[in-house]
């Protein structure tokens, strides 16, 4: 089945005491929760279970992503495979990205797979996404 663990870059949500990999959309208030095992209310898909909820039904929602540095410039870690880390250039200079060894895999998107030891300062960022209007308005 598809790996539902958030690897590299993905949303994670807390709902009714359980933490789930999640997707946000089509609108900002729509969240889809995923589970590898059946749970109440979840519908079965191909090898996993899913439930569409509103964002304000969640205990919390966060965007998890892994950042680091490659050749002295910031990068995002997208995935890890046997060849190393699949990273994306996180700067604003495509010419510089190419000079560092990245290549343009999509228009404006520079990526490369490099040995793990060449990526330094790796850390996982957890960016909270407000679930309720009061939080979004700064609690006022």
């Amino acid at each position, binding site marked *: 089945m*598809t790996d*539902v663990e958030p690897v*590299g*870059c*993905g*949303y994670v949500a807390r709902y009714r005491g359980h933490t789930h*990999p*999640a*997707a*946000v*959309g*089509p*609108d*900002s208030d*729509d*969240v*889809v929760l*995923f589970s590898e095992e059946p749970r109440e209310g979840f519908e079965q*898909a*191909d090898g*996993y279970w*899913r439930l*569409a909820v509103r964002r304000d039904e969640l205990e919390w929602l966060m*965007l998890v992503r892994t950042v680091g540095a490659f050749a002295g410039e910031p990068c*995002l870690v*997208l995935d890890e495979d046997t060849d190393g880390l699949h990273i*994306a250039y*996180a700067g*604003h*200079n*495509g*010419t*510089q990205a*190419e000079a560092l060894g990245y*290549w*343009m*895999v*999509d*228009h*404006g*998107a520079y*990526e490369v797979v490099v040995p793990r030891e060449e990526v330094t300062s790796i850390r996982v960022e957890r960016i909270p*996404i407000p679930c309720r209007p009061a939080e*979004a308005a700064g609690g006022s």
Partner: protein
Amino acid sequence: MQKVIPPRLLVPYLQGKRTVISGYVYRVQDCLRLTTPRLLYEALDLGFEGSQLTADVPELYLLRWYARDSDGYAVPYGPHMGGDWHDSPPFAGNGFTSSRGHVVPQFHTMPMPIPAGAEIYRVDEDGEHLYAIYDGLTWRPAR
């Protein structure tokens, strides 16, 4: 929002191996007149170095989604516009694509998870055809 999928990435997207959207993206309302592969190619600077697309490509695939408040879209202004963005040509750096025949505002996103409900359209001379829908984890063929 929308973005033309590079041919080499179409299968990785559909197989769930590529789970992010990244790079230059456009608002759907700014692309309403771009109804054929040739118009999209010309207006969206798709002749960049390394692109597999040509002006006479018979069909291409569009990824389309709604912007979410947690997304981060930047206007890639170059130094002449007070920004710090650089890129290989075609790149105008003035907030628009380099096309002289079309005025299309340009945005950029760092890799972000594909939104649930995103759609892939096949575009040919006859227009757009819904091809697949994303459930947040898996692409399903459109019926």
